[in-house]
C-alpha cells in the first residue's frame, strides 16, 4: 500500500474533472485520479453542442435560457443554480474558445449557433439558435481541448487508478464536524492499494446509465462516485429522474444527437406521419426530451411503430442536402451506416429512446459543495457534472445543458476546492481506513467458483430496469424491479470471479462496478415507487399528472443507520429537500 498527500484530489477526468483541475491546479497541489485515460471519458461522446446566450446569430439572453432550463426540468430545477449556469454559460463558451476549441463559425467568423430541443426565445415563443457546436462532435472537442490544456498546465494524472472509497473524518449522517479527508484507490496495472490524503476531494466521476440495458452510456459508466458516497452515508438526490434520449439507434442505444432535429430532421411513425405535431404543436420535434421520448414510446405502444417488430420509429433526414448532412452531422450519419447499414441520405434511420442521463446524483450547492442533508455541507467535499445534482436539470435535462453543467460547475468546484485547501490543514487519517476496500476486493477474489456469473447478474439487472423503470412506470413495475434487485443482491453476495490475478484484473473491477450498479438501481426504483406523480423524465401511468402540492420537492435518499428500518425491505430512507424558486412559479408545461 502507498499513501500520497495532496491538497486537492479530483475523482474522474472527463469534462467536469478536467475543468475543475484546470482551476484547482493553478492554486493547489492537485491530483486527478481516473479509472480510464482522460480522453476515454464519456464527455467525448456528447455530440450536439453547448448552449449559451451569445446571441451571435439572433436575439437571445441568459434569462430566456434560465427560463427554458427551469421549464424543461418541469420546475424541479433549483432556480438559483439555473441562473448561475445560464449567466456563466457565455464565459464558459468563450473560455473554451480561448483554450482552442474549434467551434463551427458564422460567415463573420464568430462562433456559430444552432437550434436545440427546448431552447426558445422569449419564454417559449419559438426555437432559438443557442447551441454552440463543433459539427456533431462537440463533446469530443471539449474533452480534447480540456485535456490539451491540462497537458499545457502540467496537471498531474493518475490514469487507471480506480477510486473505491471516499474517506471522511466521521459519519455524515450523525457527525456535524465531518470533513472529507481523501480517497482509497486500486491501481489497475498492479492491483496495489493507494490512499490519497487530501484537504479537498472533488467527485467528477460521471453517470450510471449502465443500470439500464438499452443505453447511450459507456460500459464504464457505473455510478462509482454516487454509490461509494451513499455507502459512506452521503444522501443522493432525485435519483428517480433519469433521461431517456429519444434518438438512440434502434436496438443498440447508440446516441444520435438531437442536433439532427435541430438541423431539420423529423421523427416519423410507420405511416411516415410527423407525429410530434400531435404531441407538441409549437416545438414539434424540438420539444424537450422527456416529451419526445414518451411520444415515441406511445406511437410504438399504439401500433404505429416501424420495422418487422413495429418497435421503433424513424428519424428522417432524407429531405436535407447531403452536403449539409456531411458538414453538420458527419459522425452520427456514419454510426447509422456502420451499425445499421442505413444510408441517411436516402433512407430514414430506425431510432428508439435510450437511457442517457441521470438528472440526480450527489447533492451540492452552487459552489459545488456536497450536502450531507437538506441544508449542511461536508467541508472539503465537492461534486460536479453528471455525478452531482445541483440541481440545474430538475426532472428533465435540456439538450446541451450537460456540457454546460460540467464546464460551469466543474470550474466552480475546482475553485472552491482550491480555496478550501488553502484554508485548512490536511486532516489526520486514522489507521486502517483502507480495510473495507481491501476486504471487499478479497471477498470478491477469494470466493469459491460458482456457476453464476457477474455478467449474468448485471444483464438481469439491466433487463428488469428496462422493463420496469423506463419511460413508463407504475406502482407494480417499480415493486417488481425492487423485488428483482433484492434477489440479484443475494446472488451478488455469493458470485465468484474467475481472474484471480493482481495485474489488470478487470474481472474484479467489473464485479465492484456491479455492486455499485445494484445499489443505485435500488435507489432509482425506490424513488420511482415513492414519487406518486409524473414530472419530467419520471412518468407514472397510475399518477399521470404533476402534483405540486405533495411532490414539488427534491427526493433525498439516505442509507439507514444500523438500528434504523428502511423502506420496502431496503436499507434506504427517503427525505426531501425544498426546490429553490426565485423567478418562475410552476406552471403547466406545454410545448
Amino acid at each position: 500500500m502507498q499513501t500520497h498527500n495532496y491538497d486537492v484530489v479530483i475523482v474522474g477526468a472527463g469534462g467536469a474533472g478536467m475543468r475543475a483541475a484546470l482551476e484547482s491546479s493553478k492554486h493547489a497541489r492537485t491530483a486527478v485520479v481516473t479509472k480510464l485515460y482522460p480522453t476515454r471519458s464519456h464527455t467525448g461522446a456528447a455530440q450536439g453542442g453547448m448552449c449559451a446566450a451569445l446571441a451571435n446569430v439572433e436575439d437571445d439572453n441568459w434569462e430566456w435560457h434560465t427560463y427554458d432550463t427551469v421549464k424543461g426540468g418541469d420546475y424541479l430545477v433549483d432556480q438559483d443554480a439555473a441562473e448561475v449556469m445560464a449567466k456563466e454559460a457565455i464565459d464558459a463558451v468563450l473560455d473554451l474558445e480561448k483554450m482552442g476549441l474549434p467551434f463551427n463559425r458564422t460567415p463573420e467568423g464568430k462562433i456559430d449557433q444552432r437550434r436545440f430541443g427546448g431552447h426558445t426565445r422569449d419564454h417559449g415563443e419559438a426555437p432559438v439558435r443557442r447551441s454552440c457546436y463543433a459539427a456533431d462532435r462537440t463533446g469530443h472537442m471539449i474533452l480534447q481541448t480540456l485535456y490539451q490544456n491540462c497537458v499545457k498546465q502540467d496537471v498531474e494524472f493518475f490514469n487507471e487508478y480506480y477510486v473505491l472509497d471516499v474517506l471522511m473524518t466521521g459519519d455524515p449522517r450523525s457527525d456535524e464536524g465531518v470533513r472529507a479527508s481523501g480517497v482509497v484507490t486500486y491501481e489497475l496495472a498492479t492491483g496495489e492499494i493507494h490512499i490519497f490524503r487530501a484537504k479537498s476531494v472533488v467527485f467528477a466521476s460521471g453517470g450510471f446509465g449502465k443500470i439500464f440495458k438499452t443505453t447511450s452510456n459507456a460500459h464504464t459508466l457505473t455510478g462509482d462516485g454516487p454509490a461509494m458516497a451513499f455507502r459512506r452515508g452521503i444522501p443522493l438526490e432525485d435519483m428517480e429522474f433519469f433521461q431517456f434520449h429519444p434518438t438512440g439507434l434502434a436496438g443498440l442505444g447508440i446516441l444520435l444527437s438531437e442536433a439532427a432535429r435541430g438541423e431539420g430532421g423529423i421523427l416519423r411513425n410507420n405511416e411516415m406521419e410527423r407525429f410530434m405535431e400531435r404531441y407538441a404543436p409549437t416545438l414539434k420535434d424540438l420539444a424537450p426530451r422527456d416529451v419526445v421520448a414518451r411520444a415515441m414510446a406511445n406511437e410504438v405502444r399504439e401500433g404505429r411503430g416501424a420495422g418487422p417488430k413495429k418497435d421503433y420509429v424513424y428519424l428522417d433526414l432524407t429531405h436535407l442536402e447531403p452536403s449539409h448532412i456531411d458538414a453538420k452531422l458527419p459522425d452520427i450519419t456514419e454510426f447509422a451506416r456502420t451499425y445499421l447499414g442505413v444510408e441517411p441520405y436516402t433512407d430514414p434511420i430506425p431510432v428508439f429512446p435510450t437511457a442517457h442521463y441521470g438528472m440526480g446524483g450527489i447533492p451540492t450547492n452552487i459552489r459545488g459543495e456536497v450536502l450531507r442533508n437538506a441544508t449542511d455541507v461536508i467541508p472539503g467535499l465537492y461534486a460536479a457534472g453528471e455525478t452531482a445534482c445541483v440541481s440545474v436539470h430538475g426532472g428533465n435535462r435540456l439538450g446541451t445543458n450537460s456540457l454546460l453543467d460540467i464546464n460551469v460547475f466543474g470550474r466552480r468546484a475546482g475553485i472552491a476546492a482550491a480555496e478550501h485547501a488553502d484554508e485548512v490543514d490536511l486532516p489526520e487519517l486514522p489507521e486502517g481506513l483502507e480495510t473495507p476496500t481491501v476486504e471487499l476486493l478479497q471477498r470478491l477474489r477469494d470466493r469459491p467458483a460458482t456457476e453464476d456469473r457477474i455478467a449474468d447478474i448485471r444483464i438481469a439487472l439491466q433487463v428488469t430496469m428496462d422493463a420496469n423503470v423506463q419511460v413508463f412506470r407504475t406502482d407494480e413495475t417499480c415493486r417488481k424491479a425492487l423485488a428483482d434487485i433484492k434477489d440479484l443482491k443475494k446472488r451478488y453476495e455469493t458470485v465468484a470471479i474467475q481472474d484471480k490475478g493482481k495485474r489488470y484484473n478487470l474481472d474484479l473491477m467489473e464485479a465492484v462496478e456491479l455492486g455499485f450498479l445494484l445499489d443505485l438501481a435500488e435507489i432509482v426504483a425506490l424513488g420511482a415507487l415513492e414519487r406518486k406523480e409524473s414530472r419530467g423524465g419520471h412518468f407514472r401511468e397510475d399518477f399521470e399528472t404533476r402534483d405540486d402540492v405533495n411532490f414539488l420537492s427534491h427526493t433525498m435518499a439516505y442509507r439507514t443507520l444500523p438500528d434504523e428500518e428502511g423502506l420496502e425491505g431496503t436499507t434506504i430512507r427517503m427525505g426531501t429537500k425544498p426546490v429553490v424558486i426565485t423567478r418562475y412559479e410552476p406552471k403547466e408545461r406545454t410545448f
Partner: protein
Amino acid sequence: MTAVAEKSQTETGAGEIPSFEVTLRISRFDPDSEKGERWEDFTVTMQGTDRVLDALHEIKWHVDGSLTFRRSCAHGICGSDAMRINGRNRLACKTLLKDLDINKPITVEPIKGLPVEKDLIVDMEPFFDSYKEVMPFLVAGGQEPSRERLQTAEQRERFDDTTKCILCAACTSSCPVFWTDGQYFGPAAIVNAHRFIFDSRDDAGEQRLEILNSKEGVWRCRTTFNCTEACPRGIQVTKAIAEVKQAVITGRV
C-alpha cells in the same frame, strides 16, 4: 439464458441476420502467469449486427473472465479498444463480425510497438509521451479579446480533419518505422501537431515545426500509408504528415 436476453436487443435492428458461430484466435499473455505468450481459440455464437467487441465480451462474460482488454464507449469515439484484428489495426467496437471472413478464425492481437501488459492491453505511456512532446495545445500570443477570437469558416476547415483524432494509437502502432524505432514520434503525434500548426489562431507553429524537424520527427515517415488505412476516424494521416513536411521545408504554413 440471460446472455440470450441481452443479444435479443440486436435482433430489433434493421436488416435482421441470423446468428452464427465464430472462432476468435486471441493472443494471450500475463507476465505473472507461467503459461507465457500463446494463442487461444474461443468459439462463440453471435448475431449479424455484433461487433468484434461483442464477441470479446461474450468470451469474457461467459467463458473466460480473465481475458483482458480495454473498452469504454463501444461506438468508436473513446479510442480504448484499438487492436490488431486479422492483421489490421481497428477498433473492436467498430468492426462488425459479418464484415470479416467468419469461416476461419479471426485473429485478435494487441497493437504492435508498445509493451504488452496483459492480453490485449499495452502500455500507452510511450504513446502519450510522444503526443505531449509536440505541444498539443493552442498557443496564442497577444492580448486576449473580450469575446471569441474570430476565425473564418475556411480557416476552421483548414485543420478540421486532424481535430477528429481520438488518440487510439491505431495509426502509430501500424507504422513499420515506429515498430523498429520506438523513439519516432509516430503519426498520431504529428496529426495532433498538424491540428495546431494549421489553426489560424495559433502562434507556435514554428516551434512545433522545429520539434518535428528533429531526428525523431517527420523525416522518419516512409509514406507507407499504413496509418491512413488504420485510422478509424478516416483521417488522411499520411496527407497531414506530408503537409507538415512541406511546412518544415518552406518554413511556412
